[in-house]
């Protein structure tokens, strides 16, 4: 199989791009923008490649579990980091809504 190795390779490339973004961007919120989305997508590609390479039903179930968990918790962690950077900003809109 060549498809799973290509998926793993492109996932590692996305994570490398996210690390370059962390080093190059200027302020903490831009860095968070680089790490949250690009590294989540990279780890998604790596997980799909790994479970295609094993090709076993238990690995597929675990892959689905970990993908759902990562895509549930990555926005929550990003929200917590952003709230720790600017604790007061955006509170008014939340109260109005």
């Amino acid at each position, binding site marked *: 199989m*060549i498809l799973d190795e290509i998926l*793993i390779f492109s996932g590692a490339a996305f994570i*490398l791009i996210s*690390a370059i973004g962390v080093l190059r961007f200027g302020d*903490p919120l831009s860095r968070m923008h680089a790490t949250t989305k690009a590294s989540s997508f990279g780890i998604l590609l*790596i997980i799909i490649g790994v479970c295609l390479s*094993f090709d076993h039903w238990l690995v597929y179930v675990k*892959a689905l579990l970990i993908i759902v968990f990562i895509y549930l918790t990555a926005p929550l962690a990003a929200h917590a*980091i952003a709230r720790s950077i600017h604790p007061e900003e955006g509170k008014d809109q939340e109260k109005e809504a």
Partner: protein
Amino acid sequence: MLTDSVSFFIPAAFAFLLLALTLALIHLARSRNINDRIVAMDLISTITMGFIMVYGVLVKRSLYFDVAIVISLIAFIGTVAVSTYLKQRQS
């Protein structure tokens, strides 16, 4: 032979992940702000997850998938705990 049927892509993925880990550690060591350090720590946990999964492909054992699940759980709890502590300290 361990690397029997491994083509070009798996060692290249290892090299990319290792370079990303080096860049994140450089950022972690150089940054003055603690918020930058939380961001770098979050990235390092993701890189470690990817590294362990690619290693599991290399040695052909699906056991390493469970390690990645546990790392993702602990990294989420750690990130939320540290940022909540910082938010409480600032207010």
